[in-house]
């Protein structure tokens, strides 16, 4: 009886203010499904950071969300420059963002570390010059939704 829901979003790479749209749309649906607030928050942060990364580094991409009764899987896919050194990219504070982007308050080198921190599982597939796919999973706490 595994019921699953697939949501699909396009992340526009030309516009900073557009980042966060997929995260907001996903959040609304998670809330309607009755997912507990902490899980919603973790998913939102993962998605938001991912959106920002795709806008800053990869000129946008796609975000796919798969939800079933066990949890949420977020797949972010772009055709950007790829990540040269994944290990370094995972270090807090490391960023290859340009100065202009940093002046806007982004590119603090917390994107990937936060995504790792707030997801239960994270996998990065990347090829320089071809693009990056980040897959994150957030499990629902046992016992289903909460009643605050």
């Amino acid at each position, binding site marked *: 009886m595994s019921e699953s*829901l*697939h949501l699909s979003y396009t992340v526009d790479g030309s516009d900073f203010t557009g980042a966060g749209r997929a995260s*907001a749309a996903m959040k609304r649906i998670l809330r*309607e*499904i*009755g997912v507990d607030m902490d899980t919603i928050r973790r998913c*939102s*942060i993962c998605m938001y950071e991912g959106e920002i990364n795709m806008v800053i580094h990869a000129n946008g991409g796609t975000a796919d969300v798969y939800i*079933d009764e066990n949890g949420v899987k977020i797949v972010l896919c772009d055709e950007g420059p790829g990540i040269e050194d994944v290990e370094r990219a995972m270090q807090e504070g490391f960023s290859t963002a340009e100065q202009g982007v940093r002046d806007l308050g982004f590119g603090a080198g917390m994107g990937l570390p936060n995504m790792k921190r707030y997801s239960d599982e994270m996998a990065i597939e990347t090829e320089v010059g071809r693009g990056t796919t980040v897959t994150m999973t957030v499990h629902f706490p046992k016992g289903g939704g909460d009643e605050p």
Partner: protein
Amino acid sequence: MKHSVTLDKERCRGCTTCVKHCPTEAIRVRRGRAHIIEERCIDCGECIRVCPNKMKKAVCDPLDRLQEFPFTVALPDPSLYGQFRNTDDVNLILAGLLGMGFDMVSEVAEGAEYISLATRTLLAENHELPRPLISSGCPAVVRLICMRFPKLMPNLLPLIAPFEAAAIKARKDAVARSGLKPEEIGVFFISPCAAKATATRYPMSLEERVVDGVLSMTDVYKELLSTMKKAPDPAPQLCKSGPMGVGWARAGGEMAALPGVRCMAVDGIENIIRILEDLEDGMLPDMDFLELDACNQGCVGGVLTAENPYVSRAKIRHLTKTMPEKRNKALSPDTFAVQLELVHAPSWKLDDDIVEALRKAARIEELRKQLPGLDCGSCGAPSCRALAEDIVLGIGKENDCIFRLREKMQIIAGSDKADDYLPPPFRRGEKREKGASGENE
């Protein structure tokens, strides 16, 4: 849930203006009339504000209810002081209220000062309360949080509202002055908005009502225009509040009463929803206090006010700069502690069972993709997505969408020209009919 926003059913034309503007998507048009989905309404008053036919009203008491009590007290919201272009004299406004037949005046601004001082104490001494604390002064915001942001409910300031603090004190003072019993005193709040009108009738944080009636600020304003002219000159010294309390009438005023505190003031319900979303996701900078006013410009922007909110906000700023400081003595926050715990009122949940909820969500997505995505509102719902939800929740049908209906009609009529059945903005032209002919590219 109980509300003060109602609809004049006779005069509603069934346009979708309010449906489109409702921040919680609580309105649907059915059979030519707008209907409010009670569980979703937060009494913010946006629908009253935008109604082109002025069909929506905030329920208030008629002025002749004053006759029911041997002794009456007026409780003016501080926003009343911003309604009069021609006077800076708060005493004159208060004298005008006495001229209307009230036996006593007790300012909500004074209650606001007590609450501000108690908030300072809480922020300085109580480190167990979560940060940021969120002002509980705007009942529409409190309702919104209880409904949509339950995780933030513990952040709400655990103090009663200024009008409640003022009402409790007013009744005591009136008993002392008149020698009557507490129930013989009629305490009337002069409200700038629907949300506060509701909050007086159905208190969220007090065990019982402390206000006997609510008057619309517009109704009172009209009376005051004549009674203020007849007031003694100079007006007697009636004003007991200072800039701190009066400032609550405008956005940023409550924040201004908390010097040295990291805080932010947000006005306008849509802006507030965005900020609360960010706060819930942990994306706001560290803050100790959030002042949130559902109406643009704060309470002076309430739907029951008479003056343009920008003009009255400027007036309030002017008053707070020129009024003498009359600091009330700080009382312990316990004096103003809330008596009831707030209750989470979920209204955005598809089903209690997550598997069933997922099934419904999947169906909503599927329907949403089939609907035209124009958000035209002709089905009576605010957007195609909302209609998809309504269909799944059983309060809407697929044929409610006029485009879907037209497609069906077209099939029945046997016409191959969809455009014959569509109004000009929605005709799809060559692209649809000629398909692969490539005329568009």
